């Protein structure tokens, strides 16, 4: 592998894509809703970094008028503004997700995705007055032994 392959761009992009992949991994692989929410936050961070990198070039100065800096030397201010916006959006949604998670935990006593799904199905069926269809995914076990009980203790306040 030649050294020019590992230039600055590659390293930065690897970081962005890497963050995204870790985030996706967290969302897809874990069952605990807190982990999934953090996975989304990581994924967003990666996407933000990708956005910042989109017009990155080495050695550019901040897009602020200071003596001796002409506009052509400045970095592109648009991605910075976009990322600012995206971060704030992310914060809002994260806060919302946490509030919902608190309520779900309070109602169902768990944040395990599979168990929440079952309890939700149960609630819908009860309200509609129909029988709960049998689940193909061994519901009894899931209900009895919460898989992520350790995580619950960690994240539960």
């Amino acid at each position, binding site marked *: 592998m030649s050294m020019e392959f590992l230039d600055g761009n590659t390293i930065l992009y690897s970081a962005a894509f890497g963050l*995204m992949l870790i*985030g*996706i991994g967290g*969302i897809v692989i874990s069952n605990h*809703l807190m982990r*999934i*929410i953090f996975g*989304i936050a990581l*994924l*967003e961070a*990666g*996407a*933000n970094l*990708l*956005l910042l*990198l*989109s*017009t990155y070039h080495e050695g550019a100065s901040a897009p602020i008028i200071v003596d001796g800096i002409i506009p*052509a030397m400045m970095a592109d201010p*648009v*991605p910075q503004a*976009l990322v600012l*916006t*995206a971060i704030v*959006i992310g914060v*809002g*949604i994260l806060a*919302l*997700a946490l509030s*919902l*998670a608190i*309520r*779900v935990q309070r*109602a*169902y006593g768990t944040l395990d*995705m599979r168990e*929440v*799904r079952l*309890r*939700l*199905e149960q*609630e*819908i069926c009860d*309200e*509609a*007055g*129909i029988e709960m269809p049998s689940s193909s995914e061994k519901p009894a076990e899931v209900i009895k032994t919460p898989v992520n009980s350790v995580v619950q203790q960690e994240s539960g306040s």
Partner: protein
Amino acid sequence: MNLLVLMIALPLLAAFLLSIIDRASSFAARVIGPLVLLATAAIGLSVWSQLGDAPQAVQWGGFQAPLGITLYADQFGLLFALAMTIGTLLLWPRSTGNQLRSSSLALLLAGTGSGLALSGDLFNIYVFYELMTVVSYGLIASRGTSGSFASTLRYLVISGFGAALALAGIALVYQATGTLNLAQLAQVAPEKLNNLQGFAAFVLMLVGFGVKAELFPVNMWVPEVYATASSRVSALLAGVVSKLALLIIMRLLILVFHQPEALTVLLVLGILGVATGELAAWRARDLNRMLAFSSIGQLGVMFIALSIPGNAGIFAALAVAVHHLFLKPAMFLLAARWGGSIRRLCGAAKTSPVAAGLFVLLSLSLIGVPPLPGFWAKLLVIMPLLTLDQPLYYFAVFIILAAASLEANYLFRVVMKLYDKQPTAVPHKAHATADLATAVFLGGGLIAAVFMLVPLADRLDSIAAQATDVSTYIQTVAPQSLEGDVQ
């Protein structure tokens, strides 16, 4: 200066001030929301009447495109903006505990929806979309049951995942082109986005924006959300909001992404959506989820229509979308009192004959019985599909027709229950007057459409033609070239 921005700004302003107004007078707080929406609808209609064949472009803040953000008003976008405003007005949420917050959310939804329909900037679309998503979380959760919180959270997970991917897609587009303005993207896309990177950006944005458009497989939230949200909110989400997400995908397809592979992806996902949705609806035992699954199927038909290259596809998708726009909200409104097990519906037609008759009419139109509008919409989808003469398109036709047979079966099972002569033990509740009146209004629209078929089809055709007119889009926005500034 253009009054169009007021369609977006006024509802937002009213939403901000609503809680302050409420302190002064709770009556004013109740009426101000609908009044503002009436005013914005009037603005939209006046713009529509003067629009004609020439779309308008407004620059937020007066900055030249592509530096500033463009607001692009053609009949296509304005139609959906109006649908959003009027739809919210008709389906104004009635929440027992959270009326003030629900009203704010409804105002925000109307404003954002209009903005989303009219926006001409990729990142701006993303922000509008995210705002609309957050507002719909609020509307779903406003029912206040633990089920609604849980389904919102599960919806939030998939939606957040998708939105982050869409953001990454936008980053890829900006990296390749250096612009976010749709008109300028339309100019440079054939050169710079007709490659792997462009396709990746399309896929990421498709799954991101597809979440709201009930695209398979990011539609797993649909049944649980529609079963736990209040009927009016379900009606809004299924009827109007999903169409706006569809509109974004249409815009992107028309202006930015021209890869043939993109169409195939849409086709395959559309077919899967129709097949899974309609099959799942067949066994649904409560009306809400039956309607939710059937809505997935209908949106799948729209995606199949979108996969038809050229004007015909947009026309067909538009026709199906407008039909669904009238139909699904009405059905969900009827489901407000008929929610729950279908078995409970025995003999409900005796208590509410109008609602039952309306349900029959809506069902007939949904499955596409001539001469109701649903039939013509379906015809518009299938006719171009068959002329494409490819096995996958033939298969899509087969799936659409088979799905219609399933639909006829499960919807008329419900109708049979409604007219069953043996009443159930639990007495049926009559529909709320407002719900029924709105549903009758929408159903009346369907019947009126039968008699105005020809002008309606011409109008939709011209809207589709205007929407697909890329060169007019570019000329109207007239973004300055980026090349000149650098040298």
